[in-house]
């Protein structure tokens, strides 16, 4: 018998969008305030897991065609390579840089190399967390 999860599915459709938005906010907020790649990544992963819960794993897999193992690996690669950026300029490994720039819509914006690093962290966290949940729930 197929369980009736209409309510869960309808709520998920709305909630996932909110969670994704909030996680992006958390992620961007992280440089000066509480937040950052780790928490942003975790909340994104929570949204993805919610999708898996509400709909079938197969169904979500059809629509989100991302191999989360590779996503995690890519995230770590980005993070490590950002660290190597410092080495290229003759600084210590993991040295960060930042600057201010006038952008069209945002106005004066602070651009940091830590943001790229954090993107890597976020991707790694999303990949790992989703992967862990998937491999625990997988039953053959």
């Amino acid at each position: 018998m197929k369980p009736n999860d209409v309510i869960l599915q309808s709520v998920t459709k709305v909630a996932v969008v909110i969670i994704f938005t909030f996680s992006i906010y958390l992620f961007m907020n992280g440089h000066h305030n509480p937040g950052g790649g780790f928490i942003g990544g975790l909340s994104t992963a929570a949204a993805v897991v919610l999708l898996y819960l509400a709909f079938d794993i197969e169904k979500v897999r059809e629509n989100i065609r991302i191999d989360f193992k590779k996503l995690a690996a890519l995230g770590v690669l980005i993070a490590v390579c950002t660290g190597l950026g410092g080495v290229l300029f003759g600084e210590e490994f993991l040295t960060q840089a930042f600057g201010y720039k006038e952008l069209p819509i945002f106005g004066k914006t602070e651009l940091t190399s830590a943001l790229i690093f954090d993107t890597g962290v976020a991707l790694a966290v999303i990949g790992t967390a989703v992967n862990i949940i998937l491999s625990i729930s997988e039953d053959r």
Partner: protein
Amino acid sequence: MEIVIAIVIGILVTIGTYLLLSRQLLRIVFGSSLISHAVNLLIITSGGLKKGNAPLLGEGKIGFTDALPQALILTAIVINFAVTAFVLVLSYRSFKANGTDDMEKLRGNEHE
């Protein structure tokens, strides 16, 4: 406050040890997880428990907490999370393969 936390740590370690010494795999996993949580509490206490501001330096704020233990337990929690997840899957696979979750039966013998 530190004393309360110390007692809590003690209780957690006691329960964790009890669970670790039991025979069911799942209990052992919970036990190891509890012990790790107790250790995380210990680390956060090691920096001193202070009331006050977030561990971010700003103008005019004094009495901020020590940020290092927080960074340490964040790392420790993540590692613990990964290890616990791995052990759960491992225990499950071992249960499927060996047909038992009783450590006494998973002992193995000399000649095989």
